């Protein structure tokens, strides 16, 4: 093969291919318009509406709604639940990811499927599972009552339901990274004299840290915004078992629209913070080494967290 003619032959089709990839101008404009209109109608407009409603009766009503003891109790409860659930899911997620990415064992496929189960199950059903298990008429109800343990209509129930709904967020993140990179570096660490913990903290964790951070953020947002499952197990006891989303619903049902939207705007804030944090992580992760990316294929976040507007 001689170089000169073949090069000439390659250039021409490449140019034509570039033309073929470029859509006509009107198609571009039409596509962009459709996307912009869709986002405007389904995202920007509702967000603006929430903020408008929240401040409709002035900043005074807004601050009063948030300073209300019941609202503050709801915020406190939501933060407590999040602080328990996220570390729990982080520990579980790392352990599950490790097991799935590193070992071939019987039931591995089942474990992968089970991790995704909460995505498939309606949160209401998730809540009902726990009522069936721990409720007064549930399987373990009498035993719990005998020992004076309250799970349903109390903090433990809310934590359980939230954990169930949010555990895939952390667990799913590191698995693709770990599977793509294989175990070579871990094996190298062990041969070089590292203990199991040293291997994890010096080699594995740095590789998956951005994926984990990403998962933790999604998990946090969802834990704060979860409505369905929590609604079933909480019992709606104002000031005691109401989380922020439940409190929003109660205010709304009591026709306190301004207050409802004021508290809802807090959840919106969480959602926006999530998006910013996500962008930052994707930016950071793509900088030092492309392989450390928390999988570039992540186009669809499984849930829009915090976007719970009554």
């Amino acid at each position, binding site marked *: 093969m001689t170089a000169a003619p073949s090069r000439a032959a390659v250039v021409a089709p490449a140019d034509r291919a570039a033309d073929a990839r470029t859509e006509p101008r009107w198609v571009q404009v039409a596509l962009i318009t459709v996307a912009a209109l869709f986002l405007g109608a389904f995202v920007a407009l509702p967000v603006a509406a929430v903020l408008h409603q929240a401040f409709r009766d002035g900043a005074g009503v807004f601050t009063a709604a948030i300073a209300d003891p019941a609202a503050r109790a709801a915020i406190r409860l939501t933060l407590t639940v999040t602080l328990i659930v996220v570390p729990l899911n982080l520990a579980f997620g790392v352990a599950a990811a490790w097991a799935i990415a590193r070992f071939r064992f019987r039931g591995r496929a089942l474990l992968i499927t089970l991790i995704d189960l909460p995505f498939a199950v309606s949160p209401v059903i998730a809540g009902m599972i726990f009522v069936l298990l721990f409720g007064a008429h549930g399987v373990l109800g009498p035993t719990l009552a005998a020992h004076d343990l309250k799970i349903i209509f109390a903090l433990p129930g809310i934590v359980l339901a939230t954990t169930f709904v949010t555990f895939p967020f952390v667990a799913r993140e590191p698995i693709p990274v770990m599977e793509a990179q294989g175990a070579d570096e871990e094996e*190298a*660490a*062990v*041969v070089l004299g590292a203990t199991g913990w040293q291997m994890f903290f*010096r080699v594995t964790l740095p*590789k998956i840290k951005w994926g984990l951070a990403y998962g933790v953020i999604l998990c946090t947002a969802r834990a704060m915004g979860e409505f369905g499952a929590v609604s079933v197990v909480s019992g709606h006891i104002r000031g005691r078992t109401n989380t922020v989303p439940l409190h929003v619903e109660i205010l709304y049902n009591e026709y306190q629209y301004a207050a409802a939207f004021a508290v809802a705007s807090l959840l919106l804030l969480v959602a926006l913070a999530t998006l910013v944090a996500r962008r930052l992580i994707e930016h950071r992760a793509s900088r030092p*080494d492309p392989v450390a990316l928390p999988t570039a294929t992540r186009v669809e976040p499984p849930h829009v967290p915090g976007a719970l507007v009554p």
Partner: protein
Amino acid sequence: MTITVDHVSRRFGAFAALDDVSLEIPGGGLVALLGPSGSGKTTLLRILAGLDRPDSGRVIHDGSDLLDRPARERDVGLVFQHYALFRHLDVFENIAFALRVRKRPRAEVRARVEELLRLIQLDGLDRRMPSQLSGGQRQRVALARALAAAPRILLLDEPFGALDAQVRQELRLWLRRLHDEMHVTTVFVTHDQEEAFEVADQVVIMDRGRIVQVGTPAEVFDHPASDFVLRFLGQVNVLGATVAHGQARVGALSLAAPDLPGDERPARVYVRPHELELALSEGPELAPARVVRLTPLGAALRVEVDAGELGRLQAELDRGRAADLGLRAGQEVWIGFRRARVFAEDGRAAA
């Protein structure tokens, strides 16, 4: 300190990766495990490193069974085929890893890493990330990392496999010199016979989970134990033949095969290209052939000849001799075997 591999077997399901392998690796030696893929050489290396366990057998080193100790307590340096450098750590921290996990003092770590950086001729690149290095540089960092904690055994898995020809050549010579200075017992895996011959004192040839021959490069090259070894060690002409009562017949030519007495049976004759004689005139034990193609190979010339019923054969001779013969394509010549090896079809016994 000699490493004694004693009746080691390893199966993966129905596949026998290692089938009752026994081997002595002399202390301070440089041994190549040579074989095609699937021959078990990497499995043996991983067992020595502690990344895999045999189903049965022992590996004795320094009076104790290596298998009783986990990988991190074996004092082994391992260089991976694709280097497996820690990609989030720079060159300095990669090399320092073994010392860091052993909690050595900072000053000692710095001194040792700098010494190794000089050894691998990468001083000044200590803050580079692995992704910013060339293949040859990564390879040397991987080696320095493996040597940092002064291992008693150095293991290398296809160490030059992913490099281009020229870098590979340089690194081979460099590894050989390095070994001569340090005398650490070294085992490396390769499928490239040229590499094994150039670097190793001892070559261990493996096939389908078994060791088929052990010896110095000269021993295995001159006295291959089987037709597998012969075929594996570079190019060779294979001719169909029959053997009877210690005599092999290839077309009109006959060869002595004293190790193959007995009645007539099929055999194969193996002739390396440089062992094929070319002549311009007829003589005893020569067969007619026609030159098909001439290919210059450095100092040598490869001559492809069409020898009729013997098929197409490759000969190699030095340029000077070729000039004396005045070879050109299409020319009628006579061929003979300066040296040939005869194996019965079942693969045993050589001449």
